[in-house]
């Protein structure tokens, strides 16, 4: 994608980033992501060769780091006019934002911005009048619905990354306020079965160990929520030698955790034992003021859900006499009874704010889903409502990844099918 100086100047003027001179580091990071993204470089690029994205205005609102940036370049290479913002005020990497602008892509994001600034950035993206949104947590979609109703009405489709965002879109639809088709990218198998479970699982455990320099072996780890994210975290905690204690509100999920061999307990009992507490609910205030009294001295709290509000850090601060950042990313609160409570990344998503986010290969799958879901929205006509990527496309993504690994699959022969027609036709009475 060649870009001349005039264009670059224009894009830089429209964008709001910290400093374009940081771009060199960002280009390296994007190149490394590209090197490890076989599905985006293969299947997705090939699919987009049909020209369907040409001059389409696409807003990309996902945690703005190297992997997301790489997706933006793939879409731009296919002719889309891409505008990018972060899906969280704390997860943007300035070097990556700078590199994108240097590649001619408009960006509205900066590292550790305030909530207010982040809101303004999202509305700035809304004002570019996107036709399609690739969203995370439906953060741009819900803001457009509320603050830019006229532009919202012109939207042609949204593809959504997360469990939380899909629930929000379904809520909008049920309220009669979703006049276009949305794709629940999250609900594709190649997304939630890998991203939510293995991606968040590996990167959350990894970030906690890296931020604290502590050992997992022998630790008791309370995990609040046993959805796909909770399952993945529990798996890796156990694999690294820790003991997971699951806290759930849904009986089926709790029974699943129990059957997976984890301890299951009510939150008061679990917290009393826990060395580490991880929130993975996708909701808010999973760990709040009423729970603090159960926490052990020196406990470590980390959030792996969607919101930065799963741990009520504001309440904790209010009830504490002192807060010190004792290590990078580790805030130590001295609570009113004198015990130390350590919060990682100040309650923001620990794997993204305190680590490198999901592994690249996992995002290669997730973004392949996002890319193909957006492509579906453009080339096929879907009714207003929340849809899921057709199964055959899900299978294509998995097949592309397996092919890259040099793995080929068996196919069923005709006589291996169990078919009711065959049974009815057969002479077997």
């Amino acid at each position: 994608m060649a870009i001349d100086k005039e264009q670059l100047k224009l894009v830089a003027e429209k964008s709001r980033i910290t400093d374009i001179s940081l771009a060199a580091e960002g280009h390296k990071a994007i190149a490394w992501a590209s090197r490890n993204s076989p599905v985006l470089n293969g299947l997705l690029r090939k699919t987009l060769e049909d020209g369907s994205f040409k001059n389409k205005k696409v807003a990309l609102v996902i945690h703005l780091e190297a992997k997301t940036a790489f997706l933006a370049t793939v879409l731009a290479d296919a002719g889309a006019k891409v505008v990018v913002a972060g899906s969280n005020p704390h997860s943007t990497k300035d070097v990556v934002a700078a590199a994108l602008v240097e590649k001619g892509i408009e960006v509205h994001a900066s590292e550790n911005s305030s909530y207010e600034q982040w809101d303004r950035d999202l509305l700035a993206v809304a004002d570019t009048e996107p036709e399609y949104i690739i969203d995370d947590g439906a953060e741009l979609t819900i803001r457009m619905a509320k603050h830019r109703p006229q532009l919202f009405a012109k939207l042609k489709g949204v593809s959504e990354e997360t469990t939380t965002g899909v629930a929000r879109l379904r809520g909008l639809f049920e309220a009669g306020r979703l006049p276009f088709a949305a794709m629940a990218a999250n609900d594709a198998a190649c997304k939630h079965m890998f991203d939510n479970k293995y991606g968040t699982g590996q990167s959350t455990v990894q970030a906690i160990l890296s931020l604290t320099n502590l050992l997992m072996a022998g630790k008791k780890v309370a995990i609040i929520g046993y959805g796909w994210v909770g399952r993945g975290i529990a798996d890796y905690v156990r694999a690294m030698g820790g003991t997971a204690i699951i806290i759930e509100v849904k009986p089926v999920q709790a029974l699943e955790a129990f059957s997976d061999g984890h301890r299951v307990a009510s939150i008061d009992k679990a917290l009393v034992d826990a060395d580490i507490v991880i929130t993975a609910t996708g909701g808010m205030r999973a760990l709040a003021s009423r729970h603090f009294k159960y926490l052990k001295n020196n406990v470590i709290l980390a959030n792996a859900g969607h919101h930065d509000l799963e741990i009520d850090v504001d309440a904790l601060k209010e009830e504490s006499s002192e807060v010190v950042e004792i290590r990078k990313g580790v805030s130590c609160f001295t609570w009113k009874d004198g015990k130390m409570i350590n919060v990682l990344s100040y309650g923001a998503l620990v794997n993204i704010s305190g680590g490198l986010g999901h592994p690249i290969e996992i995002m290669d799958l997730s973004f392949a889903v996002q890319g193909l879901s957006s492509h579906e929205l453009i080339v096929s006509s879907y009714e207003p409502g929340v849809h899921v990527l057709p199964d055959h496309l899900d299978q294509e993504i998995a097949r592309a990844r397996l092919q890259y690994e040099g793995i080929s699959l068996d196919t069923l022969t005709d006589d291996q099918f169990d078919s009711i027609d065959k049974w009815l036709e057969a002479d077997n009475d």
Partner: protein
Amino acid sequence: MTNTFSNIVSLDLAKEGLGKIQWAKRFMPVMEFIKEQCIDKGSLKGRRVGIILTLEPKTANLAIALQEAGAKVSVFCHSTSTTDSVAAALTSLGIKVFARSDADSDMDEILLNRFLDQQLEFLIDDGAGGIRYLHEKRKDLLPFIKGVAEETTSGIRPLRVMEKEGSLLVPCVSVNDAKTKQLFDNVYGTGQSVVAALLDITNIQMQGKTVVVVGYGYVGKGIAKYAHAYGAKVYVTEVDPVQALIAVHDGYTVKKLSTMCPTADIFITATGIGYSLTSDHMRKMKDGAIIIVGGAGQPEVDLGGEKQLKLGSWAREHLREVSIGDNKSVFLIDDGHCANCSAREGNPVEIMDLSLSVQMAAILFLAENEDSLENKIYSISKEVDDLVATACLNSLGAELDEPSEKQIEHANSWKHDNII
């Protein structure tokens, strides 16, 4: 080189360093317990103790504990393993620190000499670097030395060679051979931290990766365990048949390294021996393969040989591209240094609590027995191992059974007592 530079980079960094040291201290209950023992016995009071270890928050706590037990403590560390803020923090506490992250090799040698000139009586060594230097270049200072405690497998190897030759001139304790050191530090500590460093530096996924662990000692065992735990397919290469057989029984496939080169995604060396993975191997690897050292560092992975390979540009922080021809590249983490220490924070705190507590107990042993020791390598006694393990279990709230009288009687008899 002028010999007037100061021993640390800057005292201004002390506050940051003290914070890091305090964090580690919270997770080091065993060290606190052993320190109390040292204080009770009083035998370290006024003694000159030198420490050569990677200079970071955990080892800093060992230096502080020794100081609190009454010793006069000096610390040396090579530039590549020095955290300047920790050096500053220790200096602010009155410990003599000789370590600068910005030192070149000449400067490092000057710092080492300044450190040794403290006329140390006891030395805590890493890789036998200090003790070998004393034997090679500073024999004049050997008479001051009452004993040395050595931390690592790779340091014990040359000491055993010296012992066998009869050239070892001081008593040594092999801290590495302590059960509470090598069964935990080498296995769980290095295992978790090397795999974590790899993931942290590369941002890659472990699930489904073909990982080759070169060498199946305690370190290799730990690395294989954690790579497997994260979902990798693990292969082991070995030169020792018994170790290879253990690897097979732990569920790994054992192959020659050269066999694995064309197909594996990640190579982790854990041999502690130079030239374990060379440019000849690298040339056979597939494009994009990643190499990381979990053993003893350079020259464990060697780019030299007949057709030398060259380090290329940095692909990411701590990750360097090495072109192997045919438009193919492999990636070497931190230029072949032992990456969990050089690029990350080393072993987890709780693990180092065990290892460093054994170090402290070893110094106590040397001080208590200094008049009767010979110039050979001593092992850590079962009593020390049991003391350290018990202190750790107590801090975790674990419970131990005690053998009954009948069990003890049975354990100590040889006659059949149940013949029908």
